[in-house]
């Protein structure tokens, strides 16, 4: 059996999720042995038009990028959204809170009306084409990445946690960030990161997106106990979870 052909593509993003693939270090040699990487602009000069697995990083922010991702979808048997920009729109969706002409004016001033600066509302990949699997996080977690790829190679369906970050945070024995007066949105955010930020004494800011059935009553209790308002919570939720669709 020939090795599955894998291609990696990027749209509007920081390319930090691709970097996590490079950061597999020695393990990347095993990965290259198991699959045939046919296109990866950031690392290779080769290109291809057929792939079994397409990994798509970044948000879709322009009409021409919608067309490009549709072509990728047509050519790919399996399409995986890689990282928060692709899975939920990520920080790029902060732009959607403003009038788009005003956003361009703010950054480009007099040049704002030039046609190549056209921008549209930021979309996650699945708002444009069907997505088969999502690897969450900003950036993605390297262990979760290899787990998902391994599942795909074995024909299995990867299991992504559908419980909040608090579960992993408590298991690590961390003191709750709320006790320090911080607004941590771990109670409503999908786990799977190993509560990496709270374990560094940094509040969860929601890069893996909202879980599908957050325990809103519990979240309300926590807010009441710490005297926080909806506005406080909104400030934090908007960072990564603006206008977000389903995350599984």
């Amino acid at each position, binding site marked *: 059996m020939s090795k599955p052909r894998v291609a990696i593509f990027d749209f509007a*993003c920081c390319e930090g*999720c691709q970097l996590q693939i490079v950061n597999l270090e020695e393990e990347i040699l095993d990965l290259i042995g198991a699959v045939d990487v046919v296109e990866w602009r950031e690392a290779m000069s080769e290109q291809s038009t057929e792939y079994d697995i397409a990994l798509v990083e970044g948000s879709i922010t322009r009409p021409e990028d919608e067309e490009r991702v549709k072509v990728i979808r047509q050519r790919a048997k399996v399409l995986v959204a890689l990282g928060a920009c692709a899975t939920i729109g990520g*920080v790029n969706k*902060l*732009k959607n809170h403003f009038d788009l002409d005003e956003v361009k004016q703010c950054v480009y001033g007099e040049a704002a009306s*030039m046609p190549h600066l056209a921008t549209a509302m930021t979309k996650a990949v699945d708002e444009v084409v069907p997505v088969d699997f999502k690897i969450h996080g900003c*950036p993605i977690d390297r262990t979760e990445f290899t787990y998902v790829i391994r599942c795909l190679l074995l024909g299995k369906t990867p299991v992504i946690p559908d419980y909040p970050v608090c579960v992993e945070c408590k298991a690590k024995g961390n003191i709750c960030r709320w006790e320090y007066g911080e607004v941590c949105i771990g109670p409503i955010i999908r786990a799977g990161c190993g509560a990496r930020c709270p374990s*560094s004494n*940094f509040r969860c800011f929601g890069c893996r997106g909202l879980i599908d059935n957050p325990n809103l009553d519990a979240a309300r209790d926590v807010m009441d106990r710490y005297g926080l308002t909806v506005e406080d919570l909104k400030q934090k939720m908007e960072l990564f979870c603006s206008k977000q669709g389903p995350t599984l």
Partner: protein
Amino acid sequence: MSKNIRINVHHLTRVEGHGNIVVNVANGTVEKCQWQVPEAPRFFEAMVRGRRWDDIQTIVSRICGICSITHSLASTKAVEDALGLEVSEQTDLLRILMHYSEQLQSHVLHVGYLVAPDLFRAPSVVPLVPKAPDAVKTIIRVHRVANTWSDLLAGRTTHPTTLKPGGLTKIPTEKELRDLQETLKATVSDLVTICEVVLSVADKMPAFERDTEYVSLRQNDPPTYTFYHGGITSTDCNGDGPVPIQQWESVANEYVHPQSTAKWTRWHRDSYAVGALARFNNNADLLSPLGKKVAAMFGLKKGCCNPFMNNVAQLVEAAHVVETSIGMIDELLTRGLKSEKVQVTPKAGRGSGCVEAPRGILFHSYEFDKDGLCTGGNICIPTNQNHANIQKDFETFVPAFMDRGQDELRLGLEMLVRSYDPCISCSTHMLDIEFVK
């Protein structure tokens, strides 16, 4: 000899972000010669408005995956400048140590994975694995060391989770620092090996020089080969005191070129260059002994105007940061690590932060209202500052090398762009150029 050349590289590979190269030579006359950037703009300066002072780093770190620590440090310093926060010496040392891990990571990634394939005439690092397994594994090993180092100081390799205005959320233990020091000591011989491998193919870098202004940080008190403190200087400053970083807008002078729609920067001339070679040209006398030794291996001297030598300057800096960090860890251990409490009261103000990204000097400025909500920001990325200089290099390089034929010229131009280590998705100011048919 062919007098007609058409080069159209759409989405140049092995660079961060999207760029195009277009060259058209007809009957020996250069008709078009352009470096274009069609990257999707992301509008960070607009998106930070209305966000709290303690969320700025979380947002703008996402400008760039490769230099996320640098963006995080520049923005954190800018917020501290605006809110009038001082940090402790311990915080300062630990942040510089964190910053060095990114310099090593990025330089090794660039030279080892993105540039080396050109020098070995391979399309990527993948075919080099069976050809030179030991060399590739040495590069991977050093890259892993850099990332483990970032993990320890920044909380992870990409998008730090330990920075907050006024201090750090988490500091390493003394044992962890001691272990890191041992690892760094063991890395020195691997670094020398990488330098020897690059030296063995260094003749593949074109002998091309163009007199250029180089801009970087300069720190005189105490004299340091700086990535983090000091003021702004250039090779055209003739030793005049560095410009305070708060005045960066008068250095970058962003402008629109009449022949194109691209925003470029200029200071004393029509263009300037930033990056490892710029830092070297301004600060080489302050390098560590190992840094100086690597420079001597390649014959790299202050005043070098060959842009391809930026790759060599990156190796020099890789050696410098490793050696310097070994000494810094001694200093930290001698002082002893203390946990620190930080209290911040938001206030209205404007502040700037400037640090050296691996690929060149980076500026961030923010303004806050009395509640600590951001009312505006301005960010100037190293790749923006190199854009005009890449174009100027092209204009000299194409006539000088076009008699080597289309394929060699194309490879030379691709290598020239890569040598700047561009980080195109960072550079939200960069605009697309449409050339006239």
